[in-house]
């Protein structure tokens, strides 16, 4: 057992640190004095910075060299993330593309798709979004209804609605899961597509949340035309392709847990300033309970990393780290609001946004309930709940669901 860098990792870290030292004055300033205010300027600056990070070898570290990556392991990726955090500069803008969608295209895409899309994605020239969830398909993702019909010429026409789409408002492309054959059971008959976000018939609408801000979007598809080359991973193989994306999502969450910014010291800082709260046994007990769990997540990440280095694929248990982070942060926000009082909920407070954001985050990337089902079944080996949708053509499911209620 060893948490120290190997000599190669020491070199890699030193290189990353030196590069950041030389280039960090080019990084966009997102908070504090001199921070960029205009949303468009922020996005432009962050895209440019992502390009620099990619050129410096600090983004797409695990991507193969032929697609602009470094061809290194997850540990080197983590080292780069740690050094970026240490330098106090923003990371890449398109973590969803580079962390999840790019690797999916690398795994399932055609040579043409790889050479066309991966480079601009990695450099932030083209930002991507993930068009999976729908109003009636979240936890039960295979229930997507967005319909893709193939024409005589082999091209496709897509109609439907997607939701909870991060970055759709400035994305160039989306990776979209659609139903191509409703007469198959629901996990079959799905296909993955690449959708240009500026295609006629694509409408993006911001989705305001509890905080009042709109970080997510609804995406409407009204008879959107795609050519044959838009299919990723083959017609009818959409579910397998989606599972690849979800696996990379787990890795991203598992390794980058603290990257969400829900960091123990930050929470302690919220309380340390209050001389009375700092000494109050009940406040201390709660704070100690919360931060102990959050601290565990860092070392769970190192365990995930150890598994990855040994060639093992992290299982769904990595999702438990997300449950710990979100619930820990919710409790921390609650405690801090108890200490600071209503001021903690003021628009200007650093905590108000977090407190508003967390209830929704509980369901992001799979609701807590569905995560616990999956982990109970795949990790603990508990029997699944009986299902009503097994082996039934998707087109007949609706009437079945009606009959069951």
């Amino acid at each position, binding site marked *: 057992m060893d948490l120290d860098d190997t000599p190669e990792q020491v070199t890699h870290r030193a290189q990353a640190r030196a590069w950041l030292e030389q280039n960090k004055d080019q990084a966009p300033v997102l908070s504090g004095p001199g921070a960029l205010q205009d949303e468009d300027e922020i996005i432009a600056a962050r895209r440019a910075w992502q390009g620099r990070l990619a050129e410096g070898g600090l983004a797409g570290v695990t991507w193969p060299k032929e697609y602009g990556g470094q061809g290194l392991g997850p540990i080197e990726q983590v080292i780069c993330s740690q050094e970026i955090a240490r330098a106090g500069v923003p990371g890449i803008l398109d973590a969803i593309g580079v962390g999840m969608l790019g690797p999916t295209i690398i795994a399932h895409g055609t040579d043409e798709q790889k050479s066309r899309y991966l480079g601009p994605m990695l450099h932030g020239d083209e930002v991507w979004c993930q068009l999976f969830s729908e109003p009636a398909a979240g936890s039960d993702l295979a229930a997507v209804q967005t319909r893709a019909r193939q024409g005589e010429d082999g091209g496709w026409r897509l109609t439907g609605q997607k939701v909870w789409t991060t970055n759709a408002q400035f994305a160039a492309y989306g990776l979209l899961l659609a139903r191509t054959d409703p007469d198959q059971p629901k996990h079959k008959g799905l296909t993955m597509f690449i959708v240009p976000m500026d295609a006629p018939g694509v409408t993006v609408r911001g989705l305001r949340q509890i905080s009042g801000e709109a970080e997510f979007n609804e995406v409407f598809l009204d008879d959107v035309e795609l050519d044959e080359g838009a299919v990723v991973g083959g017609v009818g193989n959409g579910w397998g392709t989606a599972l690849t994306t979800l696996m990379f999502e787990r890795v991203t969450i598992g390794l980058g847990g603290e990257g969400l910014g829900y960091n123990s010291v930050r929470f302690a800082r919220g309380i340390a300033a209050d001389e009375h709260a700092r000494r109050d046994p009940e406040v201390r007990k709660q704070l100690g309970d919360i931060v102990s769990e959050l601290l565990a997540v860092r070392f769970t990440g190192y365990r995930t990393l150890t598994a990855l280095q040994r060639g093992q694929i992290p299982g769904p248990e990595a999702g438990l780290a997300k449950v710990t982070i979100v619930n820990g942060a919710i409790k921390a926000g609650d405690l801090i609001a108890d200490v600071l009082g209503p001021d903690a909920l003021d628009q200007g407070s650093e905590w108000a946004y977090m407190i508003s954001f967390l209830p929704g985050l509980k369901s992001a990337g799979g609701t807590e309930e569905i995560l616990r089902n999956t982990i109970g079944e795949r990790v*603990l080996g508990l029997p699944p709940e009986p299902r009503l949708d097994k082996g039934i053509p998707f087109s007949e499911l609706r009437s079945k669901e009606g009959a069951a209620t």
Partner: protein
Amino acid sequence: MNLALSDEQEFLREAARGTLSRVKTLEAAREALDGDSSALPDLWPTAREAGWPGLLIDEAHGGAGLDAFDAMLVLGECGRVLASVPLLGHLPATAILADAPRVADYLPALASGERRAAYLPSQPPTDVDQRWTADPASGLERSPLPTGARPDANGEVKLSGSYAFVPDAPGADALVGVAVIDGEPAGVVIMADADGVQVEPVRRYDATCSLAHVTLKDAAATVLDAPVESLAGAWHLAQALIAAQSIGSVETALEMSVAYAKERHTFGRPIGSYQAVKHSLTEVLRQLENGKSLLYYAGWARNGAPGEFPLAANSARSVAGRALDYAARTMISVHGGIGATWEHDAPLYFRRAQLSRRLLGGTSGASDRVAGELLAQAAA
């Protein structure tokens, strides 16, 4: 970066599991609760054979020269089967003595297990309480440590005062902890058979857990030349060890609960297929995995980052103590009424959870220290 066990560590763990599987520890625990304390097997000879007493003593003094994580692996195996091996008392005591050149001659007997030591829980100051304190016999207020006047040239001193709920003190040859000597905290070793030493075994809710109140009245003690960091380190080591032991118990509780949830049927299907049951069991798993991760942190930090050891060990204790409480309660719930009966094993784990959570400063004391460490970092 590598958080996997080494081959030697895998072997140490497997050997411990094999050794302890040959003893009917759970049956003995139940019989001992029924009043037959002779039912508890003496596992010290087993520990000696396995080399556990000398785990933390260097090879030059007859020990194995291993580190906290190795000791935690053994404690975890003890926790799995509620084996009553007096290592929770012995190992932190040897950690202090190993840093005290004055008593180096005594180490080989402790390493071989010919002599057994018990650690007198002595809590180092926190950010809000500048005193060294002992666990109180009752109540929330912590007790002052026993005191002594200026020692003679050989470090001999007379001590008066008490330590409550000392793990593994009954039958120990040497008692090792911290006392206030001439106004300053210092390590001390007291021979249990010396005049003025009273080791009074106390009734235990968990019969496998051997405890005593230790009272000193002008008792002869030797002041140790161990540095104060070592004295504080022993407290944190004890936190890490009890955390490891608790996590071992959580593993068994989860395994038994999952096995039962697969086999017991209601309304025509296994109860483990219901979300309510499944989610409770994944919650046990979540807490277990968090606890395990922090055991790695603590095991690494003692030598790898000594400044972080208090945070690492106490966060492990905080999570592990709560995890065992939740796991034991879930085990009872999943089993239904049968889980709350005397014949079942679940109550043995429940008893362990309730008592161990209150020893060595308590799980909540560990949480308090974690908060203190974090608040200090935040202020810096």
